[in-house]
């Protein structure tokens, strides 16, 4: 592992040896964290055929990752309430450096780069104040530049809007504290929000669910090219109720909630893991690992267009003909008119599948 000084010295030499781009690593299409059969937690680069192009060890269980828009660099985030994030050089398979959350903060597991790649934004918990914050890091040397409020409690997933200037944040609403593990501390009063901030931290718009759904934690996001946001939820209320787990929102408009018919919705155990738009943007889907199913909806009219039984399915991303998905049983697959298994390596894929944006 290169030392920090070594890394900084390396940076000074970048004019001589430019940092290599994604093509240098055999062009992975996705990043995903997994538990490997030797017991190690690793971040893997996958192509659309399900081949693992590289895999790099993580200090503990991962959650999601962020891919640098140009350089073959990725940041893998700890599962909450972890305090590490590992910056990985995907050409050499080595750790470039490690981000440590500042005193009083822990990561939630998600982050995004700015469009030019110069900044990294991370969702974090200011746990003494029980408020969400967004950490801002300079990607030249991965030093922390500052932070600003996330606009709610428990920020989890975060996406950059197509304008490159706006962050969409899933403020899940649930208060936790590292001293009490993953115990949820505020369910009766929780208030999830979909928050839009500009990259300097100014609140542009706050979207809340109807009061009766205040226990529906907004956790994961997907953004369509035209700025339509999809959000996946996790129900913390009475399990006899089966509220929608997917919503759509466009800036300045009211939100739409999408659900399967009650008899099907009731099999999901109130839990959606990931959300994505199809490659062509015409449909949107959620993965439901507790219900062992993938649900697909038409964006235009919100109708359910497919229910696909898949055991422990969770990772989900857009594909040219629909979607790619991964499961906790090792499957890497593609969903077109139906699911197809591309590969099934001997590992357990963790929650998310992160598409790598390729320069056009």
């Amino acid at each position, binding site marked *: 592992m290169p030392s920090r000084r070594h890394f900084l010295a390396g940076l000074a030499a970048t004019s001589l040896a430019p940092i290599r781009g994604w093509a240098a690593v055999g062009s992975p299409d996705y990043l995903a964290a997994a*538990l490997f059969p030797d017991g190690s937690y690793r971040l893997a680069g996958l192509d659309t055929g399900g081949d693992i192009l590289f895999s790099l060890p993580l200090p503990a269980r991962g*959650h999601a990752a962020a891919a640098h828009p140009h350089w073959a660099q990725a940041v893998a985030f700890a*599962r*909450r309430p972890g305090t590490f994030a590992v910056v990985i050089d995907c050409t050499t398979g080595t750790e470039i450096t490690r981000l440590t959350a500042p005193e009083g903060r822990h990561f939630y*597991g998600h982050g995004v780069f700015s469009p030019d790649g110069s900044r990294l934004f991370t969702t974090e918990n200011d746990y003494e104040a*029980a408020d969400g914050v967004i950490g801002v890091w300079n990607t030249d040397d991965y030093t922390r530049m500052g932070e600003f409020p996330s606009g709610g409690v428990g920020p*989890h997933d975060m996406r950059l809007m197509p304008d490159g200037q706006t962050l969409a944040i899933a403020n899940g609403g649930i*208060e936790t*504290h590292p*001293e*009490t*593990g*993953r*115990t949820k*501390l*505020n*369910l*009766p*009063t929780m208030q999830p929000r979909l928050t839009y901030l500009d990259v300097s931290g100014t609140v542009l718009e706050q979207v809340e669910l109807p009061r009766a759904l205040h226990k529906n934690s907004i*956790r994961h996001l997907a953004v369509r090219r035209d700025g339509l946001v999809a959000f996946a939820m*996790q129900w913390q*209320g*009475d*399990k*006899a109720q089966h509220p929608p787990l997917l919503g759509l929102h466009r800036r300045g408009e009211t939100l739409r909630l999408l659900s399967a018919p009650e*008899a099907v919705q009731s*099999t999901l155990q109130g*839990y959606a*893991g990931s959300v994505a738009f199809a490659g062509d943007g015409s449909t949107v889907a959620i993965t439901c*690992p*507790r219900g*062992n199913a993938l649900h697909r909806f038409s964006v235009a009219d919100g109708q359910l267009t497919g229910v696909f039984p898949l*055991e*422990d*399915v*969770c990772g989900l991303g857009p594909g040219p003909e629909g979607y790619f998905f991964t*499961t*906790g*049983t090792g499957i890497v697959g593609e969903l077109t008119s139906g699911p197809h298994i591309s590969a099934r390596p001997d590992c*357990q*894929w*963790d*929650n998310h599948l992160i598409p790598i944006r390729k320069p056009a």
Partner: protein
Amino acid sequence: MRILIAAVAVALPFSALAQDRGPILSDVVERHIIPGFASLADATGALTQAAQTDCSPNSPDLRAAYHTAFDDWISVSHLRFGPTEVDDRAFALAFWPDTKGFTPKALSGLISNEDAAVESPEEFAETSVAGRGFFALEQMLFDPKFSDQGNEGYRCALIRAITTDIDDNARAINADWGDYATALIQPGDNALYRSDDEALQELYKALVTGLEFTGDTRLGRPMGTFDRPRPNRAEARRSDRSLRHVELSLIALRDLSARLSVDHPEIADDLDSAFDKAIIRAQSLNDPALAGVATPRGRIRVEALQQAINDIRTIASTKLGPTLGINAGFNSLDGD
């Protein structure tokens, strides 16, 4: 044909074969759950009566009734599904942890406005959950901050309103368990639980999350960090009940775990001796409000108790869960 059947059989977890869950489900419901909530409803009835007779915070009868009813709640507080979750009943009975100090704020607000909601149970049930339940009552009875705030007559009405509301919630949960018991014992395709496995999973989850809450939250919150212990965050410390809650919850969870592991005597023995160790540690602590976490010596003893609870959790998750054939995937268990 025989070969085909054998092939199918090995594909299933061995423990899932021909396990009849029915007797376990009935036993847990009839001997663990129903008596617990029935006892709670009796005790909250007595608590309401005591407050009607004498609403003085120092009344020995009122305080005794408070302790008895609170004991009964803690003994069922791991059963957080179904009837307890309707209309936030469990939170209305016990709003803790209160990380932002909502309970004293809610009580002060009611007292300073002399809010008339205390005169109608229906209206009081619409007020914030933070100002209701056992923790609100505890502050009214034991916190000097509320002993002379506002008007004495109003404080008396508030104490009575809180006890009536506690009783209403406890009785509603107890009544709903009549139907819910059937749902849990007789799963079906269109029912709340579609199979015996799902029903058993609910009970197993109650055991695991109950252990987690007692270890991580009941002990973890006051422990804080070594450099910054938080004795003022101990549960129900004002009435010296913090350690008692740990002990009572462990006793109730031991009963549940024994019933769930009844068909697997080795695991049952392991669990029972792990519970024994933890309960003996709790009983020998002699630190009712867990104030000892503030000293290094006291903290080590509380840490040892927490470790003993973690040992039970390990047996439950590595032995009992897999043996019961609880199907939980890598992602479906993650909760993130």
